[in-house]
């Protein structure tokens, strides 16, 4: 459980980082908080020749709140979100989800960019990005491009990020006043990765009808995704217990969860049902 031999670089700019990355021809890894990467190296599941630490690149740690939404630099850490006073109103769902991410030591280092690139299907933040229509900004040798969160992930621990691309920021669309939201997840112990989790938000019209529901799943999936049938089930309706149950059933029917050591697909489906119904009650 010792790291393989490797070199370390601390570039001072994005350009320098991109250059290092392109020159390495796939032999380099970016290092952000290290909370996922370092164990991978210790287990020697990855043996890069070079680590490119993003720590000294200016500007990547900024949280900006504008009329357009919330923009988080790739190096913003979980603890920064948790402790940001303005975010509590600018994006209450985001802040609520943070309480479920790992343990405080890990929240002190783990970053939003690292989490997206790592693409754990059970992680909260990627699920939140998908649920909330986030836009991911990446930069590479050919310049920068924007990727919709829903089109970013290609499976467990894999993304559509190109080899020499770096995530620079993530933008969550503005959060209207009065928006309803819920976040529920089940994990064996506090801070563990979710066996299943649901993030959701919707708006309401004057009659209390659900408008534009966004429901996303984590854990019980291969990558986080929206639950379209569940959204459909409540869209345009006034929520009541019967509808909540119908929505939870639709959601648990449309997921395709993996079976692993911690739970069968069937078990995770049951969890989706429970979490979805609780998240709607919470909202």
């Amino acid at each position, binding site marked *: 459980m010792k790291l393989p031999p490797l070199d370390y670089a601390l570039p001072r700019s994005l350009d320098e980082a991109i250059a290092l990355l392109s020159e390495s021809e796939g032999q380099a890894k970016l290092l952000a908080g290290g909370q996922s990467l370092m164990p991978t190296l210790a287990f020697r599941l990855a043996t890069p020749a070079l680590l490119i630490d993003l720590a000294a690149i200016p500007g990547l740690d900024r949280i900006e709140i504008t009329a357009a939404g919330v923009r988080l630099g790739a190096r913003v850490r979980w603890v920064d979100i948790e402790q940001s006073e303005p975010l509590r109103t600018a994006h209450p769902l985001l802040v609520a989800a943070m309480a479920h991410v790992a343990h405080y030591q890990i929240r002190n280092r783990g970053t939003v960019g690292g989490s997206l690139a790592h693409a754990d299907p059970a992680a909260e933040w990627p699920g939140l990005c998908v649920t909330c229509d986030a836009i991911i900004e990446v930069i590479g040798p050919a310049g920068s491009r924007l990727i919709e969160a829903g089109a970013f992930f290609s499976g467990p621990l894999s993304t559509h990020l190109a080899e020499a691309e770096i995530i620079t920021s993530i933008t969550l669309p503005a959060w209207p006043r009065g928006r309803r939201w819920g976040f529920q997840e089940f994990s064996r*112990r*506090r801070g563990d990765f979710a066996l299943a989790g649901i993030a959701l938000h919707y708006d309401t019209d004057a009659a209390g009808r659900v408008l534009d529901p966004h429901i996303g799943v984590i854990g019980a999936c291969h990558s986080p995704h929206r639950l379209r049938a569940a959204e459909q089930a409540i869209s345009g309706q006034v929520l009541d217990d019967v509808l909540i149950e119908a929505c939870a059933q639709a959601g648990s029917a449309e997921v395709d969860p993996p079976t692993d*050591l911690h*739970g069968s697909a069937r*078990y995770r489906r049951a969890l989706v049902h*429970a979490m979805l119904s609780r998240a709607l009650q919470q909202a």
Partner: protein
Amino acid sequence: MKPVANLSPEPRVVGKRARRIEDPSLLRGQGRYVDDVPAEHALEVAFVRSPLAHALITRVDLTAARAHPGVAAVYTAADLAPILTHPRMPFGFPTDALPRNTTPWVLAIDEVAHVGEPIVMVVADTRAIAEDAAGLVEIDYESLPVVSDPRTALQPDSPRVRRELSSNVLQHYHVNYGDVNAAFASAPRVFTEHFWQHRGLASSIECRGLFARPDPATNVLTVWSSTQMSHELFRILSEALALDENTLRVIAPEVGGGFGGKFMAYCDEVATVAAAMLLGRPVKWVEDRREHFVGTIHERDQFWALEAAVDAEGHLLGVRGRMVHDHGAYTPQATNVAYNSASSVTGPYMVPHYDLEVFVVHTNMTPVAPVRGAGYPQAAFAMERMMDRIAQGLGLDRAEVRLRNLVPTAKMPYTKPLKNRAGAPVTLDSGDYAACQDIALKAIDRAGFAARQAAALAQGRYIGLGLAHCVKPTGRGPYETAVVRVQPSGRVSIYTGALAMGQGLKTTLAIVCAEQLGVDLDSIDVMAGDTSLNALGMGGFASRQTIMAGSAVHVASLEVREKALKVASHLLEAAAEDLELRDGRVQIAGVPGKGIKLAEIARKLRGSPGYSMPGGVSPGLEADSMYQADIQCYANACHACEVEVDIHTGETRILRYIAVQDSGRLVNPATAEGQVHGGIVHGIGNTLFEWMRFDEEGQPLTTTFADYLLTTATELPMIEVIFHESPSPLNPLGVKGIGEAATLPVAPALVSAIEDALGPFGVKVNDATLSPVSVLSLLRGAAQAAAQA
């Protein structure tokens, strides 16, 4: 042995909450564990371990590994053979009962029998380099059939776990008394159940590790090991490596937890010392967590079929059954887990007739040896589940059925027709089990529970109450050693063969000593587990140390006290009866100014050439004691808890947890409480979180703490500990063991509560390890059964 004066019934120091003398250095980060021992120029070891559960080794190529820069040596079994007395490990605590070919190999020769078995040892400048080179070792294997379930392993046509075995059944025996079949033949009611039980790993925070340093200046090879038994490790090293006893010293530095995992000498330890001898250089091996999961012992599956015969009032008439015990690939240290289970089923109850048939069966998995509790928790689970079944079957209250069968205080000491390993009878020496139950039920407000449960149910919440008892024999003999010495500086040194591994043993021994010598705890130094300081010692296991080492320190302290009084009486010209030991002095009682410091007496007792010893005593203000005991004293506990089960996720939340424990007299209530807390957390882990899983090919599936779940603080309730003190008549301190008795009732109490919570669904729980997934499948099963009915 001459009779020993008992501790006074009104002690001055014993029984008061005391801060641990260990803590100042630990809290300042000055604790020195194996990996902290300065090891300049030391080489470091990494092992190549078997990736397969059963295979022949057909080719080993070390060329690339040996050529790797920074590598000092790469060894196979053949390379170590010249300095080993035998290619296999010696027996730990040898008995005559087992065949020689059951211990593990120091390094595997041509066959591996479990994943993690060491094959090749790489010694290099750093552990990182050693790991790089280990990756360059080429080994070809030819797979052999894998046996991963002890129930199939005992079938005559099962493949063998090792080619050298003619059967996978290592032991097959009955533990019994009375005429159980006659009792069953005439019994009004018989209850039958099948249980699956599993414990898991010891999971000490510090993994194992050993540092061996040959010293040409003294010709002594010093070995620091994170072990629970430095004296036994000393014996095994000297036996395995033909080391003259005068050239070896084993020291246990700070030990970051044991819980059974360090209660034996391991092959990787012998190999590391062998490497130091071959190279004539300091060599260190520190186990990493990944190795720990496969290279350090487990306590795994037991499969039970148990029957209880009762009369119409629920009085036990007999218990009988069959138990299959997964023993793993080898026998590194005895087979006591299974025997402990089999011999302790009847626990605190009166059972007139008993018979358990036991199969100790090899499998192609990591060897099994004691983890805290050492087989006793499984017995308690099986018996307590039966008590619940009897109550349910007869429509009686759970507490009432237990009351009818618990050994009453009036019958103490109560001897069961069973023998322990030493051949001594099993005697419940003291305790009031019914009183403990009463206290537990009052504390949890049993009377108000029905209303709480009904109110919860009305809100769609499922809560349940659990109750379980245990007794645990503690203070395993045959002896422990202690030397108590007052130094001329005035500091008091205690040297013991017992072993401190985080329980606060040093504080406990210091308290026992301070009680007699009237010195501050801060002026006492305790040196434990250094073979150069005590020639003999047993170490830390079986909840024994306060009993055995505590009594040894008590005896030695009394002797030092007597000596000090005698010398002071001579020097002060006062009668010994008029003297007292206080504040590090012997003084005339009630006349604080007039006295003599213990330091002064110690100086005088070092002697001056040509002068006789003052008072005619022997030299040195010190005493050496070996406390002996073959009979163990029985601690008991009664736990009651309330849980809530989420029927949608299968999650169990513990709402309240009450532990009533009788460990006799408490030397330090603060550390006693800590031991109970730890024992309960371990039990909660065993029940709700921990599960060392393997697949059919013998591949371990849970080899990180992300997959093997330990209980963390956020999952724990407040644990309420209530001590009931029935001093044991079997030792001068009146103490009994603590840390294991606290684990035993946890699984049966929690499972009983979970079953109670799920009562509306008619769910029966017979597994001692229960994940949320299994709770949901039990609910599903019950629903299907109800639909069919």
